[in-house]
């Protein structure tokens, strides 16, 4: 079910949470838009399938990291919008730190420029 051009299955699973929280930290969104956003930002390298996205979204909602609400979109159709909660922001901050640690460690080994935490 995972349609990935570059990313291995484990990486997709591990990065789904910080990616979703980061997207929702910028503002509320819904499933279809999130997938498009991920595709756009990654330059098409990360391609999420719908079957994978919704279970993850619902898990984050259950864990209280994001909230959801049915709202009417501009098209007149009802859509389920997701937005980040305070707990979600805290988790995102911690995740960010961890990912940057990994990034900087690999970066040193690969002689890349470090990113400030």
């Amino acid at each position, binding site marked *: *079910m995972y349609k990935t051009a570059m990313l291995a299955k484990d990486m997709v699973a591990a990065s789904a949470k910080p990616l979703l929280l980061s997207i929702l930290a910028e503002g509320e969104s*819904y*499933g*279809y838009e999130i997938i498009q956003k991920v595709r756009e930002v990654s330059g098409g390298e990360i391609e999420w*399938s*719908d*079957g*994978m996205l*919704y*279970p*993850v979204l*619902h*898990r984050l909602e*259950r864990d209280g990291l994001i909230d959801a609400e049915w709202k009417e979109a501009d*098209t007149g*159709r*009802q*859509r*389920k919008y997701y937005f980040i909660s305070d707990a979600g922001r805290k988790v995102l901050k911690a995740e960010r730190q961890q990912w940057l640690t990994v990034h900087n460690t690999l970066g040193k080994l690969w002689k890349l420029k470090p990113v400030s935490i």
Partner: protein
Amino acid sequence: MADRSQHPGKIMETQTRFDLTAAIENWRQELAAQPDLTPEVRRELETHLRDTVAELQQRGLNKEESFWLARRRVGQPKQLCEEFAKADPTKIWRERMLWSLVGAFGVQLWLETSTFVWEFSIQAIMVMPSTIERLLPDWVLFYLPLPTLGGGFYRTFHNPLVSMFFSLVPMILTVILLSRGRMTRIASATRFLFESRRRFLFVSAALFSFYLLYLCFRLIRYSTMAATVPGNPPLTEMVQRFIAGLVLPITLLGLIAWLMPKGKSPNQRRA
């Protein structure tokens, strides 16, 4: 050129007369047939499908093409259901509970029958010498350390402590294999049992009937040999014990069948 490119699309649409609303309605019903998808999830997936269809139509695909492509992108209802089931947090506990019940069932049957198995194998070994004595010449027998009734062999092995150790061997072996990381191969070999509910129930019913036979055998032996001995409990009490011995395995089997993953889904197995 423009004429040619428009033509095939036109023909297709008039030929099939594709009804988008009906197609989406069909898809909804297919989704509704999946047990693990709540109405809210289905509604959300439907908006997703409609969004995808709209986008594809905007890109120039006709109604039918955009529906089928959108449907493919959203995923087969059955696969969607599996993905949702995988993300279900109670699933992991259901699985743990299932395995501990299976373990309890196995341990119960084994503990009940192992003493008998042990006694039976000792009897078999005790019978062996007389057979060998008949077959081999005396000068060979002289050098063979054969067990004799009442001898060291019988006294060593016909012993509650030793038979207790014997009944613990499978559990100790399992733990040793687990700690050495050799269990996965055995576990994957037994996994085929759990792939379909019917297969599992068949195997456990077979195990259970062996157990039942064993209990009957014990009861009959008791009624003919031990029940009349003064001081032994009366037969009625043994019958009560017999029934009590059945309650636990039957309950365990029922619970296991209840907890077992519904249906068989070869896609769900991870390669």
